């Protein structure tokens, strides 16, 4: 048991599942292992906002019994999973990384959470995030920043920084994040793990605290593409509670894993394969592409000029929708209410002014402006039109190519404080991921290299509802490379953080 324990937390979910089924582990001992790892490293990494030990152990007990009875259980039964803190869990705090919801307890479960439970996965805690999912570094969390497990001076990416760091450092084999402009893929890339944003509408948004309704999707974060496929099987599907949920049938995503990449036609947008991409990142990507070529795929650089308009378009549409989505946080019914205010107007102003962080306020103001009378046509309406052009450009590209590949991030992970003074420079971190959300397409980020000890990710973008092609390519890539098997140096983390703590501003 002791040998298994040592690298238990870096095993894939499917590997752990096998151990459970073989009786080499119980669900309880599995939880013990992961909670021990969290205990060991999270004071440094700070991926978690809160743990749900009581409930997790109760679940573990129940599932243990079922395993012992010999019940037929789904593939991921008994596997611990971390949830981003903008996902509603019944009778549990859901803060969205914000002071305005610091003590908010959701009275209901997100549909996704119900699906996890009915497949016997075990939520173990809620992870840190940029406040209301607005950010690319998790520095915007109202509580504390999360560190990149590969180098604590660096950000884990965002907004699902906590979820990705947790998986990277072995605090959980699986996690769920949310992605509006890259918030699963970019931190997955920064943390050297697998992150996927499914096609818009694949996963119910009911119970995901909304940031930008037409862009948000939850998705799986894992160590392997195989795990991703299994988790997708659990969370995808039409939900009558979500009017934007797609009725498209859900295939068994694991069936696609072994297709290989023979004959796969890959397009690489030139705009994301030029000098705007950091040279080491570009080099890793090129290596990855050539690897795929060795497997029988072909790749070529293609023009996708609309990509240049994606970030401005996004930064009008997303804040506009967010400005309305966050209007409900007015101090009236739940969340933080400023008690000193003497008038209704002031109560709302103070509650929001004190409860929301700077970036959230910035985006609400931006969004309100873009929707306001006299500006709606020039900004919001125009942005929606450009969005249509971006969708069409992808559709055109997919007439010729099966998958579009880009680096997930234009740069290596950056340091704390590097972009906090200039919001725009932070926004540009998502230049490769944003177009995908605007087009509603599925995209997968997988580790494809390292530079200066920091992970690099490759983004695979697919046709709408064609997650299968991405999973096939990603899985094949992981059978011929080892990037996803690398693990950060756990022991050194504790030591380094103690030394570094004083230099951190936040």
């Amino acid at each position: 048991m002791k040998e298994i324990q040592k690298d238990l937390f870096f095993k894939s979910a499917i590997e752990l599942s096998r151990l459970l089924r073989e009786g080499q582990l119980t669900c309880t001992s599995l939880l013990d292992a992961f909670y021990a790892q969290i205990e060991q490293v999270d004071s440094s990494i700070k991926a978690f906002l809160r743990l749900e030990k009581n409930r997790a152990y109760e679940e573990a007990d129940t599932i243990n019994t079922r395993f012992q009875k010999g019940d037929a259980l789904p593939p991921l039964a008994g596997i611990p999973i971390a949830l981003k803190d903008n996902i509603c869990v019944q009778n549990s705090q859901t803060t969205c990384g914000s002071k305005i919801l610091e003590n908010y307890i959701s009275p209901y479960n997100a549909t996704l959470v119900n699906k996890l439970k009915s497949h016997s996965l075990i939520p173990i805690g809620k992870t840190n995030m940029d406040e209301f999912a607005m950010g690319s570094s998790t520095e915007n969390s109202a509580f504390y920043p999360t560190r990149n497990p590969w180098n604590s001076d660096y950000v884990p990416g965002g907004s699902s920084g906590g979820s990705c760091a947790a998986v990277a450092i072995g605090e959980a084999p699986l996690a769920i994040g949310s992605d509006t402009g890259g918030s699963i893929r970019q931190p997955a890339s920064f943390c050297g793990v697998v992150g996927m944003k499914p096609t818009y509408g694949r996963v119910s948004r009911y119970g995901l605290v909304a940031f930008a309704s037409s862009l948000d999707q939850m998705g799986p974060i894992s160590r392997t593409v195989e795990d991703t496929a299994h988790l997708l099987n659990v969370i995808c599907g039409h939900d009558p509670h979500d009017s934007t949920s797609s009725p498209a049938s859900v295939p068994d995503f694991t069936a696609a894993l072994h297709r290989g990449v023979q004959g796969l036609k890959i397009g690489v947008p030139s705009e994301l394969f030029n000098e705007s991409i950091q040279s080491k990142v570009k080099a890793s990507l090129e290596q990855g592409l050539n690897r795929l070529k060795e497997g029988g795929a072909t790749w070529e650089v293609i023009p996708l000029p609309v990509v240049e308009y994606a970030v401005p378009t996004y930064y009008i549409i997303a804040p506009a929708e967010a400005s309305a989505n966050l209007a409900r946080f007015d101090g009236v019914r739940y969340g933080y209410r400023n008690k000193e205010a003497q008038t209704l107007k002031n109560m709302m102003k103070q509650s929001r002014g004190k409860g929301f962080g700077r970036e959230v306020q910035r985006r609400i103001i931006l969004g309100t402006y873009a929707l306001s009378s006299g500006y709606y046509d020039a900004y919001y309406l125009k942005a929606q039109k450009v969005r249509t052009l971006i969708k069409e450009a992808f559709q055109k590209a997919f007439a010729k190519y099966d998958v579009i590949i880009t680096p997930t991030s234009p740069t290596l992970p950056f340091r704390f404080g590097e972009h906090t003074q200039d919001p725009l420079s932070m926004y540009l971190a998502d230049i490769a991921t944003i177009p995908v959300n605007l087009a509603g397409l599925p995209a997968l980020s997988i580790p494809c290299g390292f530079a200066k000890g920091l992970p690099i990710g490759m983004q695979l973008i697919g046709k709408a509802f064609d997650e299968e092609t991405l999973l096939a390519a990603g899985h094949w890539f992981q059978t011929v490379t080892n990037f996803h098997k690398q693990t950060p140096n756990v022991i050194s983390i504790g030591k380094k953080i103690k030394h570094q703590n004083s230099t951190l501003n936040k």
Partner: protein
Amino acid sequence: MLNFESVIGLEVHAQLKTRTKTFCGCSTQFGAAPNTNVCPVCLGLPGALPVLNKKVVEMAIMAGLAFHSQIQPVSVFARKNYFYPDLPKGYQISQYELPICTGGYMDIQTSEGTKRIGIKRVHIEEDAGKLVHQGADAIAGATSSLVDLNRACTPLIEIVSEPDLRSPEEARVYMETLREILVFIDICDGNMEEGSLRADANVSIRPKGAVPLGTRTEVKNLNSFRSVERAIKYEISRQTEVLKSGSKVIQQTRHYDDAAQKTQALREKEESHDYRYFPDPDLTPLRIHPEDIERIQKELPELPQIKRGRYQQSYGLGKFECDVILSDVNVMRYFETTAQKVEPVSVKELAKWIIGDLNALTKEARQSFSSIKVTPDHLIQLVTLIQSGKISGKIGKEVLSEVFKSGEDPERIIQRSGAVQISDTGALREIVDHIVMAHPEVIAKVKRGKTQSADFLIGQVMKKTKGMAKPDLARQMILEKIASL
């Protein structure tokens, strides 16, 4: 001296009679304890999402068809953004650029004849919750307000008229006609006092004959048809005074005070609100198929104006009778059920009984025509008995009272109490003979030519027969008997 004409438009909000709310499955039942008909969706909890109630769409289409509007094959829900404690999401889901119905009209009957009022649009939106102020009747002076979200997300349709109304009377009639239609197609209770029907008036004046519209004010807090008329009347004269004094009418929202019978500006300086409408990304565009519209059109109940025409044509009913019958849906239904069972010629008499005695009994007992014990069959039976002479009209009224109380068949009641009008000549003749013979002085008078004296004997016969004799027959027999002496 300039003569002004008034230009009035009405915006009416009607609560739809669906069982559940617009975007969630909560009950719309009135009167529940505060915040009990709620769920994450209508509470606007983080993460909750709206799902459209199909019945709401059906009812909106019914309204559109009743107003001869164009039903749009594609319409879009939009967010109307503003902050208020009774608005949980901080925005109301409504429709803005692309409403479900556009155009249409409604004909109204005023003292000057029929007038066609244009309808601009009909759209669907969710209602807000309620604020219950503590320590005072209104916000001013209240110590706090309690928020009850039972009403939040209940369905409304907003019906916007063209500014075709030209007088307070027309506005009132418009409201009454609109209400009648909505109640008749059974999509709304139409109760202004309870808030299931609300109206705001847009009022402006301009020199008679001028084309451009004057500056308009919006008048709110109209809680009855009478208020609508009075408020508009006041506002017109106020605006007239303003213009006559050389000033300009300020565009503003004014609140009607029914006690004082005047309108007052709500705020000194009007800040026109920018609602920042945009299509709601949580909902897909509403697509309506021609087959659905056809089906709903077929199932649409007959409109009151059509009924009026039919009652007049087929049954010869007058305006007053139509008004009474159509004033209450239950009376209307009762009447129509009854009318369908008899020949058209017989309907008028039945109508008389319905709007007369039966209506009086029902009102006095505070019941509704939908639940009284007198069934249409009972009524028909009763009226047939009276018309055939079996019982007198007077007895008929008494029998009706009895049926109303017990629900028993009129025939059986009559049989039991022996109230059948005696037209059996044999038995009657005996009684008549006896009474005539008992009054020799009357015989003498009648023989001398004073036939009226026989009336006294008729009275006696009626007394003897406990009112069951047919008076005409008794009179005839009395005179025959006297003549034979």
